[in-house]
């Protein structure tokens, strides 16, 4: 049973974290991160070739989490697989016991470590969500019956701070129509914009898990601003970290403030500690 689904649909505040599978077959580093995060989180996202760079598959890594008693959120991007492979992996994921699914478009290959790769994008994230819903109903995207369907709790990404908002709102509505039940947001810096997003989504029956990114150093801020798509750190927040005597400590304090605000606004928080995994307890204010 998906605890994520039960809690969100039951109105309980959830905490999710995130781990990246290794570039290789040694899972020790991922498990070390999992061991720090899992005691504080209800579920952990497992990324899919994140940053368009090679990693062990989310499918295998998600299963590895499950075997250790940790609830994964299996991520699937549209960048690396066509519709046959995506559907095949959805069936595989369900057969392996993965119940939470997050569908995303995926970064452009030119941003990653295989810049010469062909970006597939046979489907987009909305279409993939719709296909997952169809599999939950027992059929594939060609409307053919499956020998055993799926029962995914389907999530998608949301970008409350990326203007223009009218376009974002239309996307949110499209995704909910496609069967998305929960959203995980890009990192939030402006709580008013998060509020605006939650108010738009709640009447439509979906849940919002708000992202918190721990800006542990000036270098991370530069990286976010120059390399991460769809995200900019506001000057006031960047200055606060840059001027701090201990930037990591300031970042943890800032993240804890953000988590406290999010508790009053959203249905959950998604913490991205960027390596400061050991600080998750402080970031969550002792809860989680």
């Amino acid at each position, binding site marked *: 049973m998906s605890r994520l689904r039960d809690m969100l649909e039951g109105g309980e505040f959830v905490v999710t974290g995130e781990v990246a599978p290794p570039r290789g077959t040694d899972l020790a580093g991922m498990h070390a991160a999992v061991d720090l995060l899992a005691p504080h989180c209800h579920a952990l996202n497992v990324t899919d070739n994140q940053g368009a760079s090679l990693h062990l598959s989310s499918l295998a890594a998600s299963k590895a989490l499950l075997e250790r008693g940790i609830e994964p959120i299996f991520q699937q991007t549209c960048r690396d697989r066509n519709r046959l492979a995506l559907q095949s992996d959805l069936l595989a994921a369900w057969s392996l016991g993965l119940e939470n699914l997050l569908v995303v478009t995926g970064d452009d290959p030119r941003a990653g470590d295989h810049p010469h790769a062909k970006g597939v994008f046979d489907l987009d994230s909305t279409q993939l969500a719709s296909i997952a819903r169809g599999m939950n109903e027992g059929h594939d995207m060609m409307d053919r019956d499956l020998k055993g369907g799926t029962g995914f709790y389907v999530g998608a990404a949301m970008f409350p701070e*990326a203007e223009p908002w009218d376009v974002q709102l*239309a996307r949110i*509505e499209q995704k909910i129509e496609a069967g998305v039940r929960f959203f995980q947001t890009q990192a939030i810096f402006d709580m008013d914009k998060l509020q605006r997003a939650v108010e738009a989504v709640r009447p439509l029956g979906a849940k919002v898990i708000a992202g918190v990114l721990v800006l542990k150093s000036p270098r991370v801020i530069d990286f976010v601003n120059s390399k991460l*798509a769809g995200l900019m750190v506001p000057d006031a927040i960047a200055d606060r970290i840059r001027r701090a005597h201990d930037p990591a400590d300031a970042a943890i304090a800032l993240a804890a403030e953000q988590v406290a605000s999010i508790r009053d606004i959203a249905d959950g928080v998604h913490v991205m500690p960027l390596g400061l995994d050991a600080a998750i307890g402080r970031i969550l204010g002792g809860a989680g």
Partner: protein
Amino acid sequence: MIITKPRDWARIEENLTSIGARRVFLMGCGQCATVAHTGGEKELEETAARLEAGGYEVTGWTVGEVTCHLNGTKLESRKHQAEIDSADAVLVLACGAGVQTTADAIAKPVFPGLESLFLGTVIRNGIFEERCQTCGDCVLDKTAGICPVTTCPKGLLNGPCGGMWNGMCEVLTDRECTHVRIRHRLEEQGRTTRRTLAPKDFSTALKPGGVNIRESGGSR
């Protein structure tokens, strides 16, 4: 039109050297390659001069009227039969379609002198943009005349993706996001902006394409 760019000179020389060619005939194109300034009279003269400076003999050159037209290129070749007969190779300053009609029309080794890039829109003289991928499954009726398959770098039918920021594209950061443009143009025209497009039918884009309007067969 088909937009082309000059092929690396080193690759052209490598091609000629591979068969020991010293005498070369040049074929240009009076259509796209002339407009793209890659295969018109001026470019053929420049290429001839460059070959001669490199020790090659240019036996002749011509700008075919429509080099991708097989019969036209056969006729054009016949007009220059002697020059072609005395050449070791033919270098074609046209798109890949023109290279292939030339290779069908002339029984000599034929090499490409250009790289074929895309089906282009002429924005202004010398400025070309790719707007259509000739996919055979047009969605422009639903996207306010803006093709997301071509102009979104990810080719997403439904967007924007998570990389859009302040209305701008994640990949081409100096360009407005295609999906923002589509939605805003639909809105301006009072059309629905809430439609989710279904997955695309890629079977219509299977290669090679072929059309025969002389018989009832139609396209394949």
